[in-house]
């Protein structure tokens, strides 16, 4: 097999991604014709919650606009409870935004089972059960700015699955877009609080990884590194127990020293405890999730090829960086799962979030940059 093969067959080797003014322009062009849109967003405290919707609604265009706010309760002891007023503030802003322009509904995702276990991923995947749930739309937009990974990973994967597995004769399949408002300053202020004791594989990526029958297959772990994730890294490592670690560093990046800073932050963990080989690092542009998708895809291909004599390998991905980059992780996980690769997404949840001192400066929304990723639909059709 040639080195070019993974790219040649990669689903998202060509892609559509816009940001900032380019995204607004894209919306305006896209909505010139009548389109019925289902816009899904998180009902949370994140000040970026409404940015994507505002951008879309301001683009105008004819057709139905249905807004689905996903509400999730992180539990009675969640530190996020302290930000209830911010949630209400966002909700009021959202209601004002959609007034007369769209319908607004709320869907609740259960995070905890009655006996106190996390079931958020399965609940999120269950928001849509058949193609009929989305067939009435031309476009589905998932804004992940105010959604946690444990929800938007299974949600987007499920929608993709429904779109992919529906026979063509059932009608035109909707476009699927993902929107995220990036704001590194704000991301730095929002900290995970009460991180779960143990990591887990996110549904639907991971059950096959834990099979006893293939326990002797080497495991390759590819974590996409971000700041202040030391505890999460350790807990995911404890779950995965990889034979090989290939961390992804953001490069090129706006701050050219960001990769160095990350290496300094995790020096002891990566080199002393986990004994990562320096040659194993993968580099991907911090502002392009498709680059992450491509680099991870290529690495997986090479690992599988090299480890074929041992029966192949299992691959575990972890998204510990920005939401934008985590979309790349999701796409590669989805595609590899479709190709029957033993793939998992290891993740550790937290009980909630605390907002650091920089929040409340008022400029957080202005500092955000909107990214739009068109990941399924007409642009990929022949």
């Amino acid at each position, binding site marked *: 097999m040639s080195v070019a093969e993974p790219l040649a067959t990669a689903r998202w080797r060509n892609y559509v991604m816009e940001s900032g003014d380019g995204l607004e322009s894209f919306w305006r062009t896209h909505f010139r014709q009548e389109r019925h849109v289902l816009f899904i967003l998180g009902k949370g405290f994140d000040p970026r919650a409404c940015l994507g919707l505002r951008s879309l609604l301001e683009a105008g265009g004819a057709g139905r606009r249905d807004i689905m706010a996903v509400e999730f309760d992180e539990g*009675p*002891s969640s*530190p996020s409870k302290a930000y209830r007023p911010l949630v209400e503030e966002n909700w009021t802003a959202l209601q004002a935004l959609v007034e007369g322009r769209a319908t607004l509904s709320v869907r609740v995702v259960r995070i905890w*089972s009655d*006996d106190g*276990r996390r*079931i958020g991923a*399965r609940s999120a*995947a269950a928001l849509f*059960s058949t193609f009929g749930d989305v067939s009435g739309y031309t476009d589905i937009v998932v804004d992940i700015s105010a959604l946690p990974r444990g929800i938007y990973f299974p949600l987007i*994967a*499920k929608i993709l*699955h*429904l779109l992919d*597995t529906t026979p063509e004769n059932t009608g035109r399949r909707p476009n699927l877009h993902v929107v995220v408002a990036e704001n590194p300053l704000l991301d730095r202020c929002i*900290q*995970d*609080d*009460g*991180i*779960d*004791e*143990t990591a887990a594989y996110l*549904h*639907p*990526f*991971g*059950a*096959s990884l*834990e*099979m*006893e*029958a293939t*326990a*002797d297959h080497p495991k390759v772990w590819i974590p996409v590194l971000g700041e202040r994730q030391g*505890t999460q890294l350790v807990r995911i*490592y*404890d*779950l995965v*127990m990889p*034979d090989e670690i290939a961390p992804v560093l953001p490069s090129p990046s706006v701050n050219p020293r960001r990769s160095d800073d990350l290496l300094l932050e995790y020096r*002891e963990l990566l080199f*002393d*405890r*986990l*004994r990562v*080989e320096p040659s194993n690092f993968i580099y991907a542009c911090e502002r392009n999730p498709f680059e992450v998708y491509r680099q991870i895809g290529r690495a997986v291909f090479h690992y599988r090829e090299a480890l074929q004599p041992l029966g192949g390998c299992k691959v575990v991905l972890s998204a510990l960086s920005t939401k934008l980059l985590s979309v790349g992780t999701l796409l590669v996980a989805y595609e590899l*799962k479709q190709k029957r690769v033993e793939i998992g997404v290891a993740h550790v949840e*937290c*009980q909630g979030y*605390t907002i650091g001192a920089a929040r409340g400066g008022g400029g957080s929304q202005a500092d955000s940059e909107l990214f739009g990723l068109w990941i399924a639909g007409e642009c990929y059709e022949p």
Partner: protein
Amino acid sequence: MREPRNPFRLRASEHIESDATFLRLFEPAMLDVLPNEELWERVYILRSAPGGGKTSLMRLFTPQVLMTLHAYRGREECRELYSRLQDLGVIGEAGPRLLGVMLSCSRNYATLADLALDEARKERLLYGLLNARVVLAALRGAVALKRLEYPAGVERLTVEAIPQGEGLPGLGLPCKGNVLYEWAKKVEADVCDALDSFGPSHYHALPGHDVLASLRLIAPDILTLDGNPIAERVLVMFDDVHKLTAGQREKLLAALIESRASVSTWVAERFEALSTDQMLSSGATAGRDYDRVIPLEQFWREGGKKQRFERLLINIADRRARAATAVEMDSFASCLQASLEGAPWQDRMASAVKDVSDRVRSLVGNSPRYQEWLSARETMKGTASEILLGWRTLEILIERDKRKAQASFDFALSTEELEHREGSDVQAAAELFLARELRLPYYFGPSRLAGLASSNIEQFLRLAGDQFEEAVSAALLRKPTDLPPDRQEAIIRRAVDQLWEEIPQRVANGGEVRKLLQAVGEFAKWATYQPNAPYSPGVTGIAVSMTDRDRLRQQRSAPGTPAFHLARAIACAIQHNLLEPFLDYRVKGDRWMVLYLNRALCVRFALPLHYGGFREQTVAELCQWLEHGFRPRKEPTLI
């Protein structure tokens, strides 16, 4: 992967890939936790906070490790371990005599509970998955033990029919090992595919079993090679049982008890497996057959095993130090200076003698009552530190006596009386006070480092690893590798600060837990640093009466109440070994639950590392602490 520069960083046994390295680092004294009798006849539960050593202990009994041990039995570092396992009947001159099957319960089982199925069906799926995995793990172990290729070697194994045994759907007995292998593989794959599926459920077609029959399938008389048992004994070790749902855990434990299989079973779980109620009652399951709980931290904490545990830790540290590639070091203790006998400290103490003795003289004034005590100190011989300690001890004793003796006559107290009152606890308090007053290091040396472990091996490795890192760096720079006391303490403080900062992230309800610990710590500090050191050497814990404890347990169903939050914070703190519980402690005519601060947290609050000093608190008071923090009463302290 590369060889470790600092082997202390390889904390959990799972992080140590090589069996040879694992054996080199494994300290045989860890086997002390196993009971001397009925080790193979009963179901045992190893329970601890994270890092207690459960998985390491279990890994020791797996085939590859035992085979490596057998190969290395002549080596000095493995000799004692080999001998201990020989005594247990685990290994012999011919090789391993036990087939250890280790299985983590963290994999998918809990997810079964989320499927849209009735309870009976879920239970069948649970047993189905467990059966498949026990079989697969046993086959892999058996093949390894017989030095065959996996999975090709399973073909040579035979599975006999089980006398009066329940059948398993889809499996005809007797059969060859490969038939059993394919059967188990399919059962597991079907269940896992369904769990990862996006599509509509077809769960009703999934394989399920009524009983945990796999234990019988792998018994020595059933699973054989050329008509002979694979090993004389089979031990199945279920790790991470806390990852099962509460219902699944109960079912598994019950199934193990009821199993008529001639295999031994051990279960390892964290305290998380227990509810708040169970945590507060120390997980008591009295009257059950599986009530052979081995609580690891508690085992080392109680029954005068402090010194044994300290030795265990130092041995572990020595083994790690010897495994370092960057430096040659035979003993970890050689990295740590253990006294303040060096010139800078002695000079500082010598210059402080005058201040402290002047303070004592001023305290005594013209009273004849303490003249003999004063004379005894003035004529005392010794090093500067001994003389200083003598004066500071005297100051505490006079403070005490003055508080008691206000109504008594001013008779002179004899030197015999001084010696009588001058116990080691008062001297320990004096040492602590001096460290604080003169900014002398207090937390240094191998013994105190071991004390900071709070009976948890991982915590020790974390603290010791930081010290070793510094020693390795010093060696690379060709500087002395024995760290001076002040440097040791600075490293420890940095590690403790980090531990403290991590609590909200690491621990469930971490914010609440840290507030409680902060209040307990501040209270302990306030109570310790009274001029008369009333609870010498100091207070490091609180006690709740067992009656109050029972009230707390009842509050578990009343969410939102202050007592509910308190109960939850205490339970979470115990789960993570941040509070060390001693139940049913009898004192002052009552029974108490004593909660000591984790010893590492004692550093944060400048407390001694001794146990025994605690103060009783009511639930109402503790609820106040949790809400508003500790507020000291208006009494003079040294703080």
